[in-house]
């Protein structure tokens, strides 16, 4: 007679449960951990990114894509929480991570993903070191600062060809956080190297917490530039425009190289038509791609009071990259997902640029950059010609003629 002890019964049960693990993995949803700053000072772009993630997950599910369970973790806009959030999500069984909007948080999350061998798909973060300091788990579908600026400089050069002239002098006015400083450094490094015939007569920086930019704008105005290049977040972009109106500072153009802010709804709501004709050079969705139109329509239906901008777009695309990898890997196993991500090759996607592929450092080098100009309080693509949806207005209409 075979005596079945309780221990043996448990062991048997465990073995029975474990045996078809691979089969079950395909039917059980793959847990996707999403790390974003949905509260704190970065909550606006953080929540915009979350809308992109959620919309992406829903549309993939409806199209019969692989089953995914999205688990969100908020970093409260504190970079050190990137690691905490990543560790928590990994403990909860996530086998792939998406995040984390800002560079500091992304690096901190990557430090947790690396030893756990869990791939991290970066939706947005531009510090070059994210793909330069040897992380093997990171896949970034966003432009690093130097490429962001290279694209911006390219757009500014084309802009001169469209309008027939370029401004001759410029003031660079930038926020002094990690992002603003790395952009400013990239501008000064690439400006002469790429032969832009615009002389930067003054560079001014201000603290990220600045409440009042009247002195900054007064100094920029005193330098009398033909071009103002603000590198901002959204709140400071609003402050700058208000001060420009009050101080009647009208350069020939305002172009923010690589700068967020003016395309956000908070900006156009806050400054109305005074924010029109403000330009930025950023990665953006391709308005001529039919798939983009479909996603934009769906977004407008589900979030009628929000705008589909690059935070939404790149987060949406991050989910498509993850879904594509799960489909090709055939399971949620992190090693299989990592191998699948390495061979990613997505031809038709919504953001402007070439196919999504990752190099050996995990960087997608095919992301394009457009020139946006606010027209009637909506950002419109004005360059390059192959995706332009409107003609650029130049020079800037004086603010006193817009009341």
């Amino acid at each position, binding site marked *: 007679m075979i005596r079945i002890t309780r221990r043996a019964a448990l062991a048997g049960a465990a073995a029975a449960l474990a045996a078809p693990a691979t089969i079950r993995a395909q039917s059980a949803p793959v847990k996707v951990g999403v790390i974003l700053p949905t*509260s*704190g*000072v970065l*909550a*606006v772009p*953080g*929540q915009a990114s979350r809308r992109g993630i959620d919309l992406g997950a829903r549309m993939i599910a409806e199209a019969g894509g692989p089953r995914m369970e999205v688990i969100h973790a908020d970093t409260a806009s504190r970079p050190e929480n990137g690691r905490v959030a990543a560790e928590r999500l990994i403990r909860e069984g996530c086998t792939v991570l998406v995040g984390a909007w800002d560079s500091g948080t992304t690096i901190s999350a990557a430090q947790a993903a690396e030893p756990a061998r869990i791939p991290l798909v970066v939706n947005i973060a531009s510090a070059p070191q994210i793909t330069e300091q040897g992380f093997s788990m990171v896949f970034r579908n966003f432009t690093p600062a130097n490429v962001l600026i290279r694209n911006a400089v390219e757009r500014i050069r084309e802009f001169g060809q469209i309008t027939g002239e370029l401004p001759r002098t410029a003031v660079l006015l930038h926020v*002094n956080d990690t992002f603003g400083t790395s952009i400013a450094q990239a501008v000064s490094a690439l400006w002469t190297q790429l032969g832009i015939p615009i002389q930067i007569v003054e560079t*001014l*920086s*201000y*603290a990220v*917490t*600045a*409440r*009042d*930019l*009247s*002195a*900054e704008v*007064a*100094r920029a105005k*005193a330098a009398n530039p033909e071009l103002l290049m603000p590198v901002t977040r*959204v*709140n400071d972009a*609003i402050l700058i425009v*208000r001060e420009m*109106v*009050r*101080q*009647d500072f009208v350069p020939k153009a305002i172009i923010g190289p690589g700068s967020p802010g003016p395309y956000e*709804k*908070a900006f156009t*709501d*806050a*400054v*109305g038509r*005074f924010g029109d004709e403000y330009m930025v050079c950023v990665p953006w969705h391709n308005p001529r791609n039919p798939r983009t139109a479909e996603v934009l329509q769906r977004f407008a239906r589900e979030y009628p009071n929000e705008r589909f901008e690059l935070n939404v777009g790149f987060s949406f695309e991050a989910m498509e990259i993850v879904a594509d990898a799960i489909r090709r890997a055939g399971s949620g196993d992190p090693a299989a997902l990592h191998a699948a991500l390495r061979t990613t090759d997505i031809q038709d996607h919504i953001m402007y640029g070439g196919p999504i592929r990752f190099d050996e450092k995990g960087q997608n080098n095919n992301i394009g950059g457009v020139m946006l100009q606010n027209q009637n309080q909506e950002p419109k693509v004005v360059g390059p010609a192959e995706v332009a949806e409107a003609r650029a207005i130049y020079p800037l209409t004086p*603010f006193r003629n817009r*009341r």
Partner: protein
Amino acid sequence: MDLVAGVIANGVLMGAVYALIAFGLTIIFGVMRVVNFAHGEMVVIGMYAGYFLWAAFDTHPLAAVLPAAALLFLIGYLLQFHLVQHFLARPAHVQFILFIALALVITGAHLVAFGPNPRGIFSLASFEVYRIGGLRLDAVRSQAAAAALLIVALLWAFLRASRLGRAIRAAADNRTGAAVVGIRIRHVYAVTAGIGMACAGAAGALVAPLFDTHPFLAPEFTLIAFITVILGGIGSLPGALLGGLLIGVAEAAAALVLSPSMKSVLSYGLLILVMLARPQGIIGSPEGQR
């Protein structure tokens, strides 16, 4: 020359607004010896009041000052009477935790109720300027500064001349003595807290057209209020005014002479200097330090 005059004048105007923000903090501390770490959150409540009044009725920004002050007076009175009162005899760190908890609750409530998006008052009035010679003064900021100075003056007169004002000062000077002569301390304290928070609310309504309102502005305002009162002298009303103006002008001067990103270096430097040379603040009395 216009550049220098314009920037300094703007510094003075901002300074007056800082002074009003700091006023509420200093009056509450001066009377009850509690430090309101949720002060910035009260300012943000005032900002939301200003924003929603504008959004609903398209009112002039100044029209929101009284309703915002009244709302915050009520909040301050009730908070003090029913909650803070029980913490007055507790050690300082317990009070700190209470106010920090309050601050977190208020910010969280703002986030849940209104979301993270900054809400800006967009009216043509917010782009008006007064021209004096070559000088361009921002109209909203000038009105805010003028209103702030008026409120400060009225409050000062109230504390000097009115019966209730004298009772508040009596309670601040000697709590036991005030109670002995029949002053209802609990009520007087609640009124003081109400006045302090009404100042924060009024300041909030005044700055709503200047800064876009969002839940995470609060710590900024708390910090500004602290620097201002420490500079001027804790518990001193003229000190708060002087502190506010000094910070406004110091920031403007730094932006002009040094780099704009060095703004706070000068105001914090000033703070350290004052703390070393005159720990009670420029106008503060040594008792303010207790």
